[in-house]
Structure formats: C-alpha cells, structure tokens
C-alpha cells in the first residue's frame, strides 16, 4: 500500500497510484468539531481516521509579523476583524492601506514587506520534521487577491481598466516578495517541497471575474515565472481558481504550466466535469470536484455518495484527487463529510 505522499507523487509523475488520492480543506471550526467528535488529538489522527491523504504545510515564520507603520496590521499593512456569522466566524479585512494612492511613485514608496524577515533556521527545522508520508506544500502566491485587500476590491478591479501602471507596479512588488522568498525556501527544502500553491480567483459564479486581456497582461507572466521557479527545484504547481474559469484553463496549462487544477466547481458554466476531462484530462490533475455550495452542506448522505461515485466514473481515464471544492463550512453535517471520505475509500481503488 502506498503512503499518501507516494499516492500523490505517483499521480504527478503520470503513474498509476494504488487508489485515488484524497485531500481535506475545511474551516478551523469544522476541523475542531471533527477532532472533538472523533476524539482525534490532531489533524494527523483525523486524516488517519478518515483515510485522507492530506497535505502538510510548512510555512516560514517571520521575524517580524506586523507592518512597520502599524503594529495592529499584518506585514502587508492589513488589519482584520472577526465577523461572526452564527455558525462560525471569518476574519475580514478592516482597512485598505492603498486605497488613497494615486500614483506609481506612491506604490513604490509604500513600505512593502521584506522576504528576508523570516526565521530560516526554524524553517529548516520544520522541514526536517515534516512527516515523510505526507505531501509537503511550501509557498503560496495569490497576488491579485492580496491587491484587492490592499486597495479595496472595487478600486482594484477598476484599476485593471483605468490605472494600469498602479496595478502593475503593486503586483510586481507582491511578486518580488514571494518570488525571492520561495526561491530561498525551495532551495532550503533540499527537494523535500513537493507542491507550491499558485492561485488567483479568476472565475465568479457564472463567468470570469475579469477579461482575458487583463488576466494575460497582469497575472499570467508572473505566474509563469513563479511556476518556472518551482519547476527548477522539482516542485509541482498546484493552481487554485474558484468559479467559472473554463476560458482561462488553456492559458494556465500552456503559459503558466500548472499540474494540478483546483477546485473544479462543476456547477459553474463551462466547468462541467465531462467537458473538462475531454478537453484537458490528459494535461492536468483535477483536484476537488465534490460540490461545497450545495451537495456537501445541504445534500443528503446519498447525494454526497452519488456525487463521489459520479466523480469516480467521470474522472476515470484522467487524474483526479478527491476533495471538497474549497473549505468545508460549519453548516456541513458531519455525516456528509464522513460519507465523502468513506465513499472514496470504498470505491477509489485503481
């Protein structure tokens, strides 16, 4: 029997794993609830309990974890406030430090974080302690999402049309930070970093959020550089884009060069699973595809079971890692979560 890591790596190298790999994405509230209900001491025990081939994240610890001008803000200058929605809470951004900016000069003058402000000794130690049977993730890069937080989402979106130099300058600062950091982390990982997270939410519920020209101009070139960097160290590129992102997938494959595509929100127009398999099945690993907007939170256990079985059938002949489409939310019944992982475990032998 393969380990979880062997399973993922087999799929990444184009070999046949022993069974369909699985993954786990959930809010902290859901994880805490499951740990309690299953009397698991930690996530590793939960993964063992539910046969989850979950990823192990190694994040470098910063030597200074706040912005130099604002001790209440993170390294980017962003403050957060917890918003309670009843079943749980989300940290939402409470300020937009770049919202008043009117020039590229002001972008350059902003105090951006420094990649060297990390405890790299601690990172080395944490990498050495990473479990050998788990896929290890190092690095995450989601630049436009960060820009939206810094600028305010509406301004950020408008900038794509009317302030090209401002948005480009800011994205370049964000890129340089992550690129420098990742280069150092990948090198220090000595081949032990298996995947890196490259992301951008390009799709909304029914269409792309912004047009192909903007994506190709502002996002793809830097994504490619980040992906090339990862590949130079043997690190595989895990790409996340929510929503109806069908139109950009060819570019993600041929320009960015992604290996895993997440989360496959198949209810969105253009993201139908059969079509994705037909058009891209030979070129990418699909990750996710268990619907998290309707089936998992509001469906019956039979609905969940049927969807997992449908996915097994639809993705057969291509490569698929079974996971929820984004974080399991607190409204999701435990029975549905268990059914997801039990069904794939019972039926996922390859």
């Amino acid at each position, binding site marked *: 029997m393969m380990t979880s890591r062997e399973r993922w790596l087999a799929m990444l190298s184009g070999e046949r794993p022993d069974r369909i790999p699985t993954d786990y994405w959930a809010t902290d509230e859901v994880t805490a609830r499951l740990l309690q209900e299953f009397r698991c001491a930690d996530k590793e025990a939960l993964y063992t309990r539910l046969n989850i081939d979950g990823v192990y994240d190694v994040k470098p610890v910063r030597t200074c974890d706040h912005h130099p001008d604002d001790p209440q803000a993170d390294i980017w200058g962003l403050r957060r406030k917890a*918003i*309670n*929605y*009843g*079943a*749980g809470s*989300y940290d*939402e951004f409470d300020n937009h430090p770049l919202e008043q900016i009117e020039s590229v000069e002001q972008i350059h003058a902003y105090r951006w974080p420094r990649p060297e402000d990390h405890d790299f000794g601690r990172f080395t130690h944490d990498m050495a302690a990473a479990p050998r049977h788990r896929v290890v993730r190092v690095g995450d890069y989601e630049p436009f999402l960060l820009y939206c937080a810094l600028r305010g*989402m*509406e301004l950020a*979106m*408008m900038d*794509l*049309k*009317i302030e090209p130099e401002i948005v480009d300058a800011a994205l370049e600062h964000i890129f340089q930070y992550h690129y420098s950091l990742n280069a150092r982390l990948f090198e220090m990982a000595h081949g032990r970093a298996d995947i890196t997270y490259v992301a951008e939410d390009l799709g*909304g*519920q*029914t*269409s*792309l*959020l*912004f*047009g192909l020209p*903007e994506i190709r101009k502002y996002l793809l070139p830097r994504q490619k550089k980040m992906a090339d960097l990862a590949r130079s160290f043997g690190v595989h590129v895990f790409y996340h884009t929510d929503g109806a992102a069908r139109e950009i997938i060819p570019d993600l494959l041929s320009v960015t060069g992604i290996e895993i595509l997440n989360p496959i929100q198949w209810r969105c127009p253009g993201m139908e699973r059969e079509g994705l398999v037909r058009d891209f099945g030979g070129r990418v690993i699909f990750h996710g595809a268990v619907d*998290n*907007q*309707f089936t998992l*939170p*509001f469906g019956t256990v039979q609905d969940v079971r049927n969807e997992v079985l449908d996915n097994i059938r639809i993705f057969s002949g291509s490569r698929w890692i079974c996971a929820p489409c984004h974080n399991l*939310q*607190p*409204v999701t019944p435990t029975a549905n979560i268990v059914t997801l992982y039990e069904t794939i475990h019972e039926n996922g032998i390859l």
Partner: protein
Amino acid sequence: MEDLKKLYDAILTGNFKIARETTQQALAAGIDPQALVQQQMIPAMDEVGRRYEANEYFVPELLISARAMKASLELIRPLLAAKGAEPAGRVAIGTVKGDLHDIGKNLVAAMLEGAGFEVIDLGVDVSPEKFITAVNERHATLVAMSALLTTTMNSMKTTVEAIKAAGVRQKVKIMIGGAPVTQKYADEIGADGYSNNANAAVALARKLVAA
C-alpha cells in the same frame, strides 16, 4: 443628439469625466434631465448589462460604467427630485446579517440606479430590522438581499420571516441573489424572485414592480 450620444458612450466606456462634462453641458443647454435618464443613461446601462451577460464585459467594466453613470446621475438627481419625478421603483438593498461581501450587491445597486430605480443601499451585515425600517420609513417597495456564503444564506430566510412578522410583507417584493443562492432557495423561503447576475436583477426588479 450627437452631443447627447457622448453621454451614452461615456457611460458605456466608463469615462466618468466625459459623463460628468457632457451632463453639465446638456443641463446648461436646457435638456430635460428626465430625457437624459430615459434616452441616454438607461439605454447605456442596459447595453452594459447586455454585454455583461454576453461575457463581453466583466466586473471591472461594470464598475467603471457604473461610476460614469453615477457621475452623471449626481448632477441629474436633484433636478429630478425638484420636479417630483418618480423613480421606477424604490429598492432597499443590502448584504445580509453576518456577511460582509458587497461587490455583487454594489453592482446590482449600480445597475438598478442606472435603470432608474431609487436605491437605498443599506450596506453589509444588514439585520432584518434595518430592511424593515427601510420599508416603513423610506417606503421601499422592493427588498433586495445578497449573500455570498452558504453559512450566511440563512439570514435571507430570517429576514423574510421578520418582514412577515412585522406585518409589511404585502408592501414589498423580495428578491435575492448571490453565489450560493438559487431559485429553489428563493422559493423555499418565500422570496418573490432570484437572479444570478446584476443584469438579470434589473430585469427581475422591473418585472416585480410591474406586477
């Protein structure tokens, strides 16, 4: 009409400076503000909406067009109010309790304004009581609710129930939207309609006020 077409074009292309200038010039020349709204602004925003549904325009284009439209409307609105012009409808719109996501709601609000509705934007994290206050004190005849999360959708149901309990359900039509929302959910909670994008929301609002 050549000059007036500049307003249509300015809104369509999202040029708020030209939209404002053209409106100032038109009003100074004695053009009826209602004519500007009906013959330029609303058709321009209708075309923006059409292009959005056709995947020719996306969120950035909608936002800059809305900004241009608002730049024009800012100058026109006081004149319409002075004339006692009635809006197409009066909409209280908000993102529901517990949810802070507002870009979808803001797009719908802008499109409704561009379609001639008076929009009472209640913001985000809106309690049922605030919607009810908008109905009672500001005479909203449409309530439009947005939610982005499966975990906050339930606030739509509690708001509908609160509106009923407050005895004002017959005074308003209720429409809902947002990523996890569906027609089925709208039917379940007793809303009058659901739309899955900003342009469809305008069509729905027009239909509901005409009913």
